């Protein structure tokens, strides 16, 4: 019996050790990936690289057009996706009466969140680029990405709204406020930090998207920065993809350097999201 017991305990111990090793695997891969990219591209990142247009000569090429393109597209994506997404979330969380229609909307949003991003690209190509005549413009790209992140925006905003205690709403109603007054003056301000954090995370997902923008026909070689919503454009991930597809080692170094710029941008966005969340936490703790 004691032998059996000792055996069981060593199995338990081995199981735990295996779990720990596998859990650390993710960390190891992440570090390897970052070190590999830093080794390949860090020496290429410079002010010249960030402010130059793409070029046939790898040593002259830079990410300026792609960086400005990414910022343009994401800014416009935010302008489209935030009102739509926050509006939907408010309706579903504060108004909907568990009707069959709102049940359908919820199921639909959960399903949309699982549709592959390239399919959104096909939708954007047929709807925005061709049917609505936006062409291969910043507006077409931003509209496509806005639809792509819409489910994420709705889900995260709903979560932020749900975290607002019902007592706040009841207090407001007791003072005679209407439903919209309650939402606008009480619920939304209380849910703001959570909402903003979710929005930034949704947008940082959009900034790394490549496939849907290739599908709508965003250009891979753009020697100018976009100057309006009708302008053709490229974005950082597409520029990186373009460089990765070339055989010359010098272009591969550019790709690594482009990745460093992209990861830097993502890090800044995520840092902002964490900062907002933590500051809100301190406020509510007091």
């Amino acid at each position, binding site marked *: 019996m004691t032998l059996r017991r000792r055996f069981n305990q060593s199995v338990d111990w081995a199981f735990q050790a295996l779990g720990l090793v596998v859990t650390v695997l*993710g960390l190891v891969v*992440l570090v390897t990936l970052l070190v590999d990219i830093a080794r390949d591209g860090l020496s290429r990142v410079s002010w010249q690289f960030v402010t130059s247009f793409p070029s046939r000569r790898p040593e002259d090429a830079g990410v300026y057009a792609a960086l400005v393109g990414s910022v343009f597209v994401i800014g416009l994506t935010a302008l489209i996706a935030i009102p739509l*997404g926050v509006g939907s979330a408010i309706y579903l969380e504060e108004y909907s009466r568990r009707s069959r229609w709102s049940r359908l909307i919820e199921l639909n949003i959960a399903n949309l969140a699982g549709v592959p991003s*390239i399919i959104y690209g096909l939708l954007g190509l047929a709807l925005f680029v061709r049917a609505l005549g936006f062409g291969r413009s910043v507006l077409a790209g931003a509209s496509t990405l806005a639809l792509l992140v819409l489910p994420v925006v709705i889900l995260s905003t709903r979560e932020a709204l749900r975290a607002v205690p019902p007592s706040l709403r009841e207090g407001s109603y007791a003072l005679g406020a209407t439903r919209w007054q309650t939402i606008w003056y009480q619920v939304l301000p209380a849910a703001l930090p959570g909402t903003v954090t979710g929005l930034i995370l949704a947008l940082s997902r959009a900034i790394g998207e490549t496939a849907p923008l290739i599908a709508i026909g965003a250009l891979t070689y753009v020697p100018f920065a976009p100057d309006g919503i009708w302008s053709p454009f490229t974005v950082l991930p597409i520029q990186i993809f373009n460089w990765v597809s070339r055989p010359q080692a010098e272009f591969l170094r550019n790709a690594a350097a482009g990745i460093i710029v992209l990861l830097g941008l993502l890090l800044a966005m995520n840092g902002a999201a964490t900062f907002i969340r933590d500051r809100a936490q301190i406020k509510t703790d007091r």
Partner: protein
Amino acid sequence: MSVSSRGRLERAIEHLLFACASVSILVTIGILSVLVFETVQFFRTVSPIEFLFGTTWTPLFFDKQFGVLPLVAGTVLVSSVAMAVALPAGLLTAIYLSEYAPTSVRRVVKPVLEVLAGVPTVVYGYFALLFVTPLLQQLVPGLAGFNALSPGLVMGIMILPMVSSLSEDALHSVPSGLREAAYALGATRAQATVRVVVPAAFSGISAAAILAVSRAIGETMIVTIAAGQQPRLTGNPLVPIETMTAYIVQVSLGDTPAGTIEYQTIFAVGMLLFVSTFALNMVSQWLRERLREEYS
């Protein structure tokens, strides 16, 4: 403001918000109509039988053949490699985090997993092509520069966080009474986990696995960059292949005018991709709902 005009404003706002919420339905209708419209056009030229069961895919060549099976095979192959990594590793991670790990370890591991899930796919593509493939070539003789193995492994790491976080939620939803009963019968933690907790969370864990398959099938950039662009009906992970998603990108990169058969193929392939991921997502959702019903 009078009471009645305030009431009108209230109703107007509610209608406006309702309209916002309905946009998501329009998106689904949009996706479906675009895919169906172009696919019907496509089937006027190519019979559905030839498309679904043909074994040669050469729509961009002079001698056009429209058998989608090579693309399906490539997709299944890469996804299988990815699942072979993500499923065991994700489940073990979930078990460790949920049943064993002290809070301090959880506090480090969870954000790292979140970062892994947030890395853009084009970055994983770079990593697969220029780091993992050369590394594997030293270990596996005969591995081509473009292959299904390397992007599959990297994709497995990418979807690992999703498997582990959804499985962990499932394990958490198992009532602690079940664990305590197992301990009371003299079970060790490993025994309680393997024989009681994991079976009790089974529907939730399957939901996570199915969602991961759906994600793997729809992943685009890793395979476009590192798996090659040669549609090939094979189960060999060492040679170049092409997935459904990579084909869509390949055609999109060229300048294909609307209305041509090449243009219609990407929607037909997209339709197949949409139908398969949609079916998997529905099953996953149904399983998750069942888990919720079991323990609440």
